């Protein structure tokens, strides 16, 4: 049975600088929670607080129902994987992996059995007599994972474990981490600044900014219904297009008029996701359109609430499966995601179609979703 984690009104300052500004978080047993946010948002500090590597400023931390504010890391039944791997350079892989069991005086036979099981699982069994200096980055990462797994704790803490790997290896290890979680069913708290890692791994994502949690929800909700512009802008790559504009009622319909754009461009926002009908004319809003909701006109099956407009192509960026077209509305760069075969040369006019049911509307003043 895995342990849950509960944080209550957690605060932490370094010097006069408050990095964790009152965080409440309830992580269910067996969950895979990803803390994601830009650098300096406090996500690593929050992980260190859970690990017991930093002292709590105020508030409480519970692991498995027990308050652990004053419990040292060794007694929290946790294991941690560090960004730098933090392998012991003078010890062999074998001794690195068994060190935690050694300090806990686990019988030698049990140590050997656990070592064998996880060395095989992580495919590091042929490396056991090497020193960390003789391993490649990916192998070190596996050893660091092995060191965490072998003690079979109730909670795993990952601090950006994949950010030092090259792109291909990162995707492989991401899948392996997810497999391991599905197999072991332990609670995982995983810190990353990579929103794709967050989306692919998490059962729930906590988006952090400036010492606060902006939104804590499952990946689909975070992506489809972000609570504010920060979450909307942080999750998704390329990021959501943010178009400043004003609300306008005309003939019983509601539109957003982009700032600085020509008169003919007005986005209808009647869709269920965009609740702008109650706002008075001229209210300043931000219209959020994800790149994949803008495509070449007529290339998708017709649907409700489509809006078609023309704009010249500025830049074309092929990615392989899709091609990004950068164009401008009201002097602002926007990105559309089109099929490679629909692409046009820079400078040519292009007819775009937007799925307005997926559009988001934010209050320009507060940044909150409407």
């Amino acid at each position, binding site marked *: 049975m895995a342990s849950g984690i509960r944080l209550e009104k957690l605060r932490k300052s370094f010097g006069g600088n408050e990095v964790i500004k009152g965080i409440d978080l309830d992580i269910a047993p067996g969950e895979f929670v990803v803390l994601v946010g830009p650098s300096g948002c406090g996500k690593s500090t929050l992980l*260190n607080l859970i*690990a*017991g*590597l930093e002292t709590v400023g105020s508030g409480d931390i519970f692991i498995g129902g027990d308050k652990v504010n004053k419990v*040292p*890391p*060794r007694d929290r039944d*946790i*294991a*941690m994987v*560090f*960004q*730098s*791997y*933090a*392998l*012991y*350079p*003078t*010890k062999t892989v074998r001794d690195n992996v068994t*060190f*935690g069991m050694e*300090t*806990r005086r686990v019988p030698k036979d049990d140590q050997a059995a656990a070592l064998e099981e996880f060395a095989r699982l992580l495919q590091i069994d042929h490396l056991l007599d090497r*020193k*960390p*200096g003789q391993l490649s*980055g990916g192998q*070190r990462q596996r050893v660091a994972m092995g*060191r965490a797994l072998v003690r079979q704790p109730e909670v795993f803490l990952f601090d950006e474990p994949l950010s*030092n790997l090259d792109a291909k290896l990162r995707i492989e290890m991401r899948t392996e981490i997810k497999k391991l979680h599905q197999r072991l069913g332990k609670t995982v708290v995983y810190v990353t600044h990579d929103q794709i890692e967050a989306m692919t791994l998490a059962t729930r994502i906590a988006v952090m900014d400036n010492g606060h949690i902006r939104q804590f929800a499952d990946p689909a909700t975070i992506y489809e219904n972000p609570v504010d512009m920060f979450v909307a802008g942080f999750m998704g790559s390329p990021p959501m297009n943010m178009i400043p504009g004003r609300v306008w009622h005309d003939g019983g319909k509601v539109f957003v008029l982009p700032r600085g754009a020509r008169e003919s461009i007005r986005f209808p926002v009647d869709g269920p996701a965009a609740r702008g009908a109650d706002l008075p004319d001229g209210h300043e809003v931000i219209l959020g359109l994800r790149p994949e909701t803008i495509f070449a006109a007529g290339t998708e099956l017709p649907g409700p609430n489509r809006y078609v407009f023309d704009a010249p192509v500025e830049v074309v960026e092929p990615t392989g499966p899709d091609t990004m077209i950068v164009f401008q509305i009201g002097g602002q760069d926007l990105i559309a995601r089109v099929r490679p075969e629909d692409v046009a040369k820079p400078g040519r006019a292009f007819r775009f179609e937007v799925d307005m049911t997926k559009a988001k509307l934010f209050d320009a003043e507060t940044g909150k979703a409407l």
Partner: protein
Amino acid sequence: MRARSTSGIVRRSGPGAVVMRVVLFAVLGLFCLYYLFPLFVMVSTSLKSLAEIREGSFLAFPRDIGFEAWAKAWGSACVGVRCDGLQPYFMNSVMMAVPAVILSTTLGALNGYALTKWRFPGADIIFALMLFGAFIPFQVVLLPMARTLGELGLAGTVPGLVLVHTVYGLAFTTLFFRNFFIGVPDGIVQAAKVDGAGFFGIFFRIVLPMSLPAIVVTVIWQFTQIWNDFLFGVAFTVGDSNPVTVALNNVVNTSTGVKEYNVDMAAAIIAGLPTLLVYVVAGAYFVRGLSAGAVKG
């Protein structure tokens, strides 16, 4: 280890470059001679007989190589009124230097570890104050230290000297280890904490094995300082408890009879030999330690 080679140096060829090379090596050769010359004079003089020294030039090679001067310096030269040679004083120095080096190095390593990996409020201030100790002229502390040793009942003894050298070595050893440990990633200590090791467990099982290069540097430094110390030795010991440096001074300055240059030279070399040995032995470990401790990422 990578083989030494100059293949990575691109240089211009031509007559001017050749002349510059010749000048370079001539200057280097001159400096070598300059440094090796006193050593040559000492060794060759120590191997000559007194008669040969008086007759010949001190630059000449010895005609008959003899070790009588060495034997006398070691076993029967007169230090003051006692004529047992340097041997008992040499042992004093060993009994002083070895424990003092071990103690000051161990404590310095612990200090450096605590100051960098178990950060506490005021750690930087404490380190700055300790560093200050490296700049205190030893003359200033002679009288208070003499009083302290008296109170402790260690005045005029070798253990007293061990205490003095340990205390005054701490500033340097702490500095060396602190600067080394600051480069050891905190993540390694954090990982060991999560793995269940405590303050001393992490120190002895993780951190200390990593710090071989720092240990070697500190041991060389401390041994040289302590073995070569004259001031504390002459101030805090009397007669039989003198370290070898003080005894050497007494041998050379004995004013009765003829001046035995060969014995003086042999005695001086004997007194200096252990530091040379430490450089050679520890130096080899030093190079090995540097390459063994090199772990990227």
